[in-house]
């Protein structure tokens, strides 16, 4: 049976997370289908149909799908489900919100946040903030899965020629109504797909001081992240949080500044390729996972770092 991927997008463009999820789907079966639910989202459907290996794309274009309300989206996936052995979505707030509903409607378990696929029914997922990996076997007839996107490459948007099928209008279940969103606009790369990330913690002392990190991020084309303590203190918005209960990232380079390295933070960044830590406390646990550590005052080190970067860039 084929595998279905629920596509995350903003009605204009595919989110990178969907491309990683398609790669995971292709490891399960050669035959991969996708579903795009949104409003005026045909462009997204066309992009997906061009992904290598995608056989068919369903597009459900309706105002009730515009804001991805879980109660509206889940019944549509449920209705399509009998043709599929596996249904996958990225383990982002989008996928986490919707997929457990689909699983419950199907009376099957959800397998959350998989990091590897051993066979059609056997998967590995982190538990206890990534301090253990669980290899599990699903006994359910259908597998509902969310995918940790950092563990799978992105599929390229080329080489494919999937068939596009429109799904007809659905009635509004009318359970939750979208009121508004406050999305943080930024020209920087998205945290979960950035090649370089510089994150600040409580040691940054204020939101204003994050400009020290932004200056460096601009030079490195990096994303800016944060620890929970920095978010709780109001230095930066919630979507900056990296960790067990925030975003999981795995860039080529992660620079942790004024972050102690609590297990919950490490859970979100320890798979980064190169980790740099800047902290004035040489005992800080962040140094245990850092490839390169500098012990010292971040307010002295960051301006120096910014200057040194100018030298290599010129």
């Amino acid at each position, binding site marked *: 049976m084929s595998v279905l991927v629920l596509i995350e997008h903003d009605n204009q463009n595919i989110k990178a997370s969907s491309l990683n999820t398609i790669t995971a789907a292709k490891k399960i079966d050669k035959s991969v289908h996708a579903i795009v639910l949104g409003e005026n989202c045909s462009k997204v459907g066309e992009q997906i149909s061009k992904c290598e290996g995608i056989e068919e794309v369903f597009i459900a274009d309706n105002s009730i799908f515009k804001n991805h309300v879980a109660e509206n989206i889940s019944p549509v996936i449920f209705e399509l489900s009998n043709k599929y052995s596996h249904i996958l979505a990225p383990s982002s*707030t989008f996928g986490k919100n919707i997929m457990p509903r689909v699983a*419950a409607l199907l009376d099957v378990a959800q397998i959350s946040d998989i990091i590897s696929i051993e066979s059609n029914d056997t998967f590995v997922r982190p538990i206890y903030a990534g301090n*253990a*990996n669980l290899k599990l076997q699903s006994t359910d007839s259908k597998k509902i899965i969310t995918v940790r996107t950092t563990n799978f490459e992105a599929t390229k948007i080329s080489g494919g020629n999937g068939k596009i099928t429109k799904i007809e209008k659905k009635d509004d279940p009318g359970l939750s109504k979208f009121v508004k969103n406050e999305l943080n606009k930024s020209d920087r790369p998205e945290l979960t797909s950035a090649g370089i990330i510089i994150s600040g913690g409580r040691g940054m002392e204020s939101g204003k001081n994050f400009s020290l990190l932004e200056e460096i991020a601009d030079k490195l084309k990096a994303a800016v992240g944060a620890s929970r303590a920095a*978010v709780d203190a109001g230095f930066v918005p919630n979507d900056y949080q990296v960790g067990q209960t925030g975003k999981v990232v795995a860039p080529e380079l992660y620079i942790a500044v004024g972050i102690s390295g609590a297990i919950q933070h490490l859970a979100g960044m320890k798979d980064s390729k190169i980790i740099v830590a800047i902290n004035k406390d040489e005992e800080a646990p962040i140094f245990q996972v850092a490839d390169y550590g500098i012990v010292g005052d971040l307010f002295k080190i960051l301006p120096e*770092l910014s200057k040194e970067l100018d030298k290599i860039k010129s």
Partner: protein
Amino acid sequence: MKILVPIKRVVDYNVKIKVKSDNSGVDLENVKMSMNPFDEIAVEEAVRLKEKKICNEITAISIGSAKSEETLRTALAVGADKGILVETEENVQPLEVAKILKEIINKNSPDLVLMGKQAIDDDSNQTGQMLSALLGWPQGTFASKLEINEKKINVTREIDGGLETLNMELPAIVTTDLRLNEPRYASLPNIMKAKQKPIEKISPGDLNIEIKQRLKTLKVTEPPKKESGIKIDSVQELVSKLHDEEKVI
């Protein structure tokens, strides 16, 4: 208004767990256990709604071993009025937790269910969404703000791009995120008083729920350890390492 708060007893968030040497699971012998931190936030929110007179009864419910009674006592000490313990020695996975909660809800008809977004042991992040689907109720997941207006509720949610607000009619399921509130500690007198509050004990069988292990554990392993790195004295040296050796900048 009646509020139901499902709470799970989990390894304390400060504990660094160890994988058992036979790879059958995680060693939980003599390890400090606590209420799941997101559930503490849910209890706190319910108590605040009670203090604002929006709520008049809070029931805490836990599904787990006899020791989960301690966790229920903690919720009672913070301000829940009564507890329900669904006692089982088996590991109960999210779909069955949701089914048990659904049965309890059908009997107790709460107006609002406040629960954690994620249990920090299995990191599943499923139960609230599943429960909401089983009941056909609206869901407001990852909530950082609630505004209740008679029979309607506005839920501000923490999503990957920022914040989103949904409006829904009660009864509804809300799952908590970290920024919803800061939980209080129970005072000693309240801990004493909590000992007198009622806890009803039942079993999954009483609710005709069969506990299935839909996801079978094959092996639990420790993730690969990172080799420890080096300390560097100067920023200049760091930049040259990253640029010339690692070639990441």
